[in-house]
């Protein structure tokens, strides 16, 4: 199967995709974008979070065939050039990264949260990121990261 899709702003034609492949698998195995992670492939952990046409989705639950003609943004597409996005920088600086396996998905989900609510309170952050499992950090530093990123993103650039 052939899939045409825009990934991180670049139009791609992906050949040889298996009919039952997930978007996650297409990104990782066909496009070499392995930043999007495979921790459950059942929609339970959020490690595979990406944007599909601007909405946050679990890429393991989206069939590759469904993204024909659509636009996907992954963790690799958040920063600009060598610059990390403020959300990524905040994760780095607050100690939100241990093993880091949850991090790409968590970063994309936190990015999406701050797009819709620039000033989320603690319970809102906890609720909105509750679809992203982290086994290492206990989440406290991740809460700090979201708050730090929110503050920085409000500053006039």
């Amino acid at each position: 199967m052939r899939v045409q899709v825009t990934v991180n702003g670049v139009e791609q034609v992906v050949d040889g995709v298996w009919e039952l492949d997930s978007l996650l698998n297409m990104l990782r195995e066909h496009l070499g974008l392995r930043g999007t992670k495979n921790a459950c492939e059942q929609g339970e952990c959020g490690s595979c979070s990406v944007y599909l046409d601007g909405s946050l989705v679990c890429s393991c639950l989206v069939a590759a065939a469904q993204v024909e003609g659509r636009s996907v943004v992954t963790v690799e597409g958040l920063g600009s050039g060598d610059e990390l996005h403020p959300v990524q920088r905040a994760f780095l600086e607050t100690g939100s990264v241990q093993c880091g396996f949850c991090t790409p998905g968590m970063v994309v989900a936190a990015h999406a949260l701050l797009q819709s609510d620039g000033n989320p309170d603690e319970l809102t952050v906890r609720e909105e990121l509750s679809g992203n499992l982290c086994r290492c950090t206990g989440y406290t530093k991740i809460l700090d990261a979201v708050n730090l990123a929110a503050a920085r993103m409000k500053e006039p650039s």
Partner: protein
Amino acid sequence: MTTTLPSRTAPPTQQADGVGSSTLRPDGIPKVDGSFIYSSDEYHEGALWGVTLRSPHPRARIASIDTTTAEGIDGVAAVLTHLDVPGSKTYGMIISDQPVLAFDEVRYQGEPVAVVAASNPEVARRASNLIQVEYEELAPQTDPEVSIAGKAEGFPDGGLVRHVKIRHGDVEAGRRAADVVIDESFEIGTQDPAFLGPESGLAVPVGDGGVELYVSSQHLHHDQPQIAASLDLPLDKVRLVLSGVGGAFGGKEDLNVHIHACLLALRTGRPVRMVYNREESFFGHVHRHPATARVELGATRDGKLVFSKVRLVLDGGAYASQSPRVIGNGSFFAGGAYDVANVWIDGYATYTNNPPCGAMRGFGLVQSIYAIESAIDRLARELGMDPLELRMKNALSEGDVLPTGQAIDGPAPLQELLTYVKDLPLPDASNPASVDPRARPGGLGNTTRGEGMKRGVGYALGMKAIGFSGGADDTSTARVTMWIRDGEPVAEVYCAAAELGQGIVAVETQIARTELGVSQVFLPDKDTDIADPGATSASRQTWMTAGSVVAACELVRAELLDRAAALIDEPAAELVLRGPNICDATSGRTLIDVAEVLGETTISHEYTYHHRKTYPIDEETGQGDAHPAFAYAVHRAVVDVDTELGLVRVVEMASAQDVGKAINPVAVEGQMEGGSVQGLGLAIMEELDISDGRIRNPSFTDYLIPTMLDVPPIKLKVFEFPHPDSAYGLNGVGELPNLSSTPAILNALRDATGLDLPRAPVRPVDLIL
């Protein structure tokens, strides 16, 4: 006490991003931008995919295996069974009892029976399903008591892995001296490490008949001989490289894909990738031992503990894995962090046809600390005494003697830890109706507005031995190299200490900065080309590897100063290293630049650090100086319980821990927070549901780990009482937070409801009043 650290010359003064600073992790940027390569990301052009066929039965005799149909599938490159294992048919961390691929009999559900390599994972999976295995099912033996009685069929010694005996003082005299005695039994379910990064790896055959394996592991050098033995290759033909590890928590000490991927790669002559999916992962690694514990405690009327007697049973499942050591550790500290003169402990680890259990963060102590800390609260109730006061009255202090006869010779600041949680203000207990529903039990289900809701506060105290014990000569080796790059002195730290997420890579760079005054530190791949760093386990890695890295840095610095001394004709003893300069020790005046001394040359030294000598315990009495060091932590938990529906909200957790020296304070906090939350999971939600030897919930849909919304604010207090035996006075950190968090929450639930709640995790049905 002696250590093997050479006498220290003064390290350079304060260096940015050195020891004690919360410097950024060197792997941080790739981890946030998605470019970090985990073992499940390893890629090789033309690689085959390997998959594993596993037993559907917890116990069965294998009558026959027929691979012909599977081999005939287009795209299949190899189908291997036990007949294809050229060397040792079994492997194991302590006892080589686990078949690489099952022969004769399968002993747990999910045991590997065959492996397939094919051009893509779907073909491999389909082919594996076409392997015909004829099983004769046998009744699984799942009761550890049968194994303790030596009556379990099909296991060595009738199913008993190890019986640990600790006999200290005179328990009967203690019983006579006691005014109050309790006798209670506790139980703890099976917890899964549930690391997010699955078991995975890439095996690449190399020209000389050997193999390279890129894999996630807690200890490459312990994997290597097990793999080599099964492949029938000399050690130097099996090279391991640490790939990115997505968490481990003990679950990546045992081998998983290792031998299978290498067998397939060597058979096909092609690279082979293997990645477990989440369901397979639940069958592909060891779990925390489920436990039962009977605890008898006696105290005088004024609350002085006079005896403790504990019978602890840990079911290790089908293979030994780390069970002999886990039950040792669980038993040594089954009396908790208390000063008790008369102690009698029996610990049993068993074989059954349940899923194999082994190392998991806390290593036997999560179970025994849970039991003793639950019993302490029960005793406090009988005494009519505040449970925190009872703890303060009996907590160990430096110089006290443990039930194993060993005197505590490092700091034991338990009074300080307990005082912190005692004095910490409690969270607001305002009218629940006014609180956001997301902060109430039941959350957005909006199941209560405060009616039927009760608040409770609970405490617990934990201790653990740090490092390998019982006579082990534990080591870590590191090589440190210094040279000039773009006019600046830089360093490389080469050490195979496994980075699992805890941050040893940051520690390595911090030490080199502090000791050598450099800014830039390089870390090459961690592999088996250098000597053994020991496992990232037992809360030992920072201690041990700081030992080797500091010492290697000191050797480099000493040579640097010697060379400088020769160049400028000054005694080396008068020189100090200050950043990029070498200065006069007294005046601080710069005498020569490091760049000038080194020029185009490098200085490189390797060092192997040993922790202080330990001794085996006596098999009959459990007495002996077995441990190199101890560490301590306390937790306080505050909970709200909806007693009509049995729903729980953990309102706040607070923890105090002595870490000796926080090499990287943010990383230390991260360990404390992460461990506390794993303990929260075990307290109220995490359990592998196992019946008749079968796991009923092998998915994140049914095995729940805490989400961000389940986790309350966590208050931390890090104490730094320097340990006399370690670099910078640091102590082990990683496992302590798991010990006291679970019983603190259970004690809070007991406080809220008045229920006994002997079993963790607590289920809603247990809490309905």
